[in-house]
């Protein structure tokens, strides 16, 4: 259960060193990505001018305010509330995101599935769990919106945030086949029969 302080981008070695139940705090650059962003990138052939190699992406679509471009707000957007969305919907984009763009770290809530876990193992990646629904807190870790691409998809644009002390985040899926979600789900499924018995549910044969 080691803690790691990472400045992005990270290397494959750094990511493969992580195991489930470790914690990570990020410094530097973090990219925000969402359903529409990835549908347009991977299903419709849109390209981004950002180099995501070795970087971390977070499943988000923030609340922002349009402002005059300045040193503080180089993209012309001020962050209002930046949070995290449920990752599961974007399961099928994990592999192209890693294979085509070189992404190493995915941050989200609720977890990803087997195909993502396989991609983390084969390509060297990790899923970091953030506490969903705690966006007010998360926003205090965002220093600025540095840049934005694919902004016609707003709010599902591809955002580049500058972050400071972003975390701690929990390593919930690692490159060694470990998934905290699988562990919890299997344990819960094993309790199902006992819970139904406690409710007096009578098993009926077909």
């Amino acid at each position, binding site marked *: 259960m080691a803690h790691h302080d990472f400045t992005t981008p990270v290397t494959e070695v750094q990511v493969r060193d992580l195991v489930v139940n470790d914690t990570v705090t990020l410094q530097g650059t973090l990219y925000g990505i969402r359903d*529409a962003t990835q549908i347009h990138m991977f299903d419709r052939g849109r390209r981004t001018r950002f180099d995501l190699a070795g970087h971390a992406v977070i499943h*988000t*679509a*923030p*609340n*922002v*305010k*349009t402002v005059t471009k300045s040193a503080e707000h180089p993209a012309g957007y001020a962050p*209002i*509330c*930046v*949070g*995290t*969305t*449920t990752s*599961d*919907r974007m399961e099928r984009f994990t592999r192209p995101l890693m294979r085509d763009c070189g992404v190493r770290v995915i941050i989200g*809530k*609720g*977890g990803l599935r087997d195909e993502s876990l396989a991609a983390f193992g084969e390509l060297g990646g990790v899923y970091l*769990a953030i*506490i*969903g*629904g*705690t*966006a*007010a*807190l998360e*926003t*205090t870790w965002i220093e600025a919106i540095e840049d934005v691409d694919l902004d016609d998809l*707003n*709010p599902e644009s591809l955002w580049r945030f500058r972050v400071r002390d972003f975390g701690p985040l*929990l390593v*919930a899926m690692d490159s060694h086949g470990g998934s*905290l*979600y699988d*562990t*919890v*789900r299997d*344990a*819960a*499924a094993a*309790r*199902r029969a*006992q*819970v*139904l018995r*406690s*409710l*007096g*549910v*009578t098993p*009926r044969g077909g």
Partner: protein
Amino acid sequence: MKIRLHDIEETAKVLYVRALKSLPPDVKAGFDRLAAAETSPRGQATLATMIRNIAVAEDTDNLLCQDTGVPIYNVWIGPGVDVDGAGLKRAIRNGCARATHEHPLRSSIVHPLTRRNEQTSCGIEVPVIHVDFSDKAETLEIEMVPKGSGSENNSFLKMAVPAEGVDAIRTFVVDCVLAAGGKTCPPTIVGVGVGGTSDLCVALAKRAATRPLGTACADPDGAKLERELSSAVNQLGVGPQGLGGDATAFAVHIELAATHITMNPVAVNMQCHSARRARATITPAGIAYGY
């Protein structure tokens, strides 16, 4: 009491922002109750972060969660209230759009086929507006619920049959909670609709999911089933955020309707831990805001 549509528009705007920023006291108390009972260290840490977020949102006057949700307005009109109904709906819609522009808020609403976002939090049939009637004289109430999508995406309907009995309801609720796992941002309020037609059953589940914590189903058998299921789902170990622990749900809430002799429908709609809602009560004395 003559209702001015300008007041409705302003109230609809204020309610959206209030709901997004301040959690109702019953939900805060629910967090304290779950945190006190949580035995898993990870569950305790996760709940502590959620509780801290509530304080940060209040201290920084920020939104609790980035998801501005699907805006839902529930309206109750009492006797002696004189209001233009169609105008009321237009005013609510305008207020919702103004909140989105003026705060500003993320518009989370798109056309279902083109996925075009009008950046107004409005679209076809959205905001969702329900109008009903109450016995409260000279009183118009508006409740605003920004319904988060992570929990809304885990909505389920089963048209069970009478031969499956109440056991079908019990099993379905447990299996829905298992299927949702961490995707609904637990701890949740598990809303269960029982009976009615298919559409009414789902509407009842939503009503149950957005009912204040500490309230019970008006039907005694429904209330008993709520207590049983509330205890049962917290034995599953899904825990806060699906990362393991005791606190899978604040409660299971049930709303009932009579149904057909051949039918036994059950629906589940969940509310995430950011169980947001806000209420305005308009009387001759003025507009009072609460939950």
